[in-house]
């Protein structure tokens, strides 16, 4: 092969770049036979915290460039809690977003009814607001028996979603506290 000096520098430059990239944990050297491509190649990486229990494992979400949908979620090796590992629930995190059995519309079961029916978001949110307001106003206590300020209602309880992550939980509980709720629970504490 007739390699000019200029050509040689080009080649060695490319090799050096290759080494620099492979230092990040991915071997980019060309694979000869039966080379396989990762499904996460070119995917966007975002970190998150597993929503399931109180341990709080870190995970990396791989999102496809084309549709912006989740293609993989696995443990975050840089996270101090789990160092890349995840249990069976954490390993299934991607199903929170990618599962044809997910509910995508609000469902309503009327008191004493056996049926769930689809309702609109507008109706559901308006109905929740209406009922929370009515119950809160009817039961809100400013002071307890000892005369101490409590500003609470014990007539409403909240069991937060099992699919809320750390940040979402914070917003959610802040809202509940502002309403005066004291019975606030989440999957991670159960």
């Amino acid at each position, binding site marked *: 092969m007739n390699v000019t000096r200029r050509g040689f520098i080009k080649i060695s430059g490319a090799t050096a770049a290759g080494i620099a990239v*492979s230092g990040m944990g*991915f071997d980019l050297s060309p694979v000869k036979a039966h080379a*396989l491509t*990762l*499904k996460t190649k070119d995917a966007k990486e975002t970190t998150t915290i597993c929503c399931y229990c109180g341990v709080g494992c870190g995970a990396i979400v791989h999102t496809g460039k084309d549709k912006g949908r989740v293609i993989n979620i696995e*443990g975050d090796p840089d996270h101090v809690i789990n160092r890349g*590992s*995840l249990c069976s629930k954490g*390993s299934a995190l991607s*199903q929170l977003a990618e599962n044809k059995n997910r509910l995508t519309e609000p469902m309503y079961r009327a008191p004493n009814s056996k049926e769930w029916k689809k309702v609109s978001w507008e109706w559901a949110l308006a109905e929740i607001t209406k009922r929370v307001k009515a119950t809160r106003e009817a039961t809100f206590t400013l002071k307890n028996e000892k005369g101490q300020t409590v500003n609470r209602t014990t007539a409403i309880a909240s069991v937060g979603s099992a699919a809320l992550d750390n940040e979402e939980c914070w917003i959610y509980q802040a809202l509940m506290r502002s309403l005066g709720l004291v019975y606030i629970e989440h999957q991670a504490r159960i």
Partner: protein
Amino acid sequence: MSKSFFIDTTVCTACRGCQVACKQWKNLPAEITKNRGTIENPADVSFNTYKVVRMREEVIDGKLRWLFFPEQCRHCIEPPCLDTAGDKSAIFKDDATGAVIYTAKTKGLNAKEIIESCPYNIPRKGKNGALAKCDMCLDRVQNGLLPACVKTCPTGAMNFGERDEMLAIANKRLGEVKKISQAARLLDADDVRVIYLVAYNPELYHKFAVASVDNLGITRQTALAKMFRPVKNIASGLV
């Protein structure tokens, strides 16, 4: 440089992270399961389930023990299935890792013959006639990542790396476990790339935990098929 797994069943908690991580990475569908009186689920490996954590309750020396065994293809060093198939486009061994890979061309093989040839009863036939099993996450390994099951293991039961390193860890750990349980041993360490460490009699963990002559069901038919296999396949098999 060939690869191997080391699976330390003594620290496995049967969380089944490996089982789910495998499905998740490979986008394999769930199985319809039912309560069989055990939380071991699904009941067996299948075309869509390459990994199953076996769970057995056994009374050993008057103490109840819960034995866990994360089962998968052992990626045999001399794979009987590959031998039986005699078709490198259907079943081949990856040179760099030693992974035993099944392709879509397994459709053309005699599935029963292949399954019977496996000393560990692993390959399974799908609706389309092809065979499937663990592929060592070759896509991940070729790109410098750990197999999905190993990556996710929270207790360190699942390990993966260069074969000599895995053997070294396995033997070191065997020494430690021996102090607690005399029956501790490594299973078929010289013949497979998935080396299990068990603390008690392997038969208590799973019927096919270790290869035995009874399990190695090479049928008369298979033996004949092997005898009449074209010479070029045998020759290429030696390379």
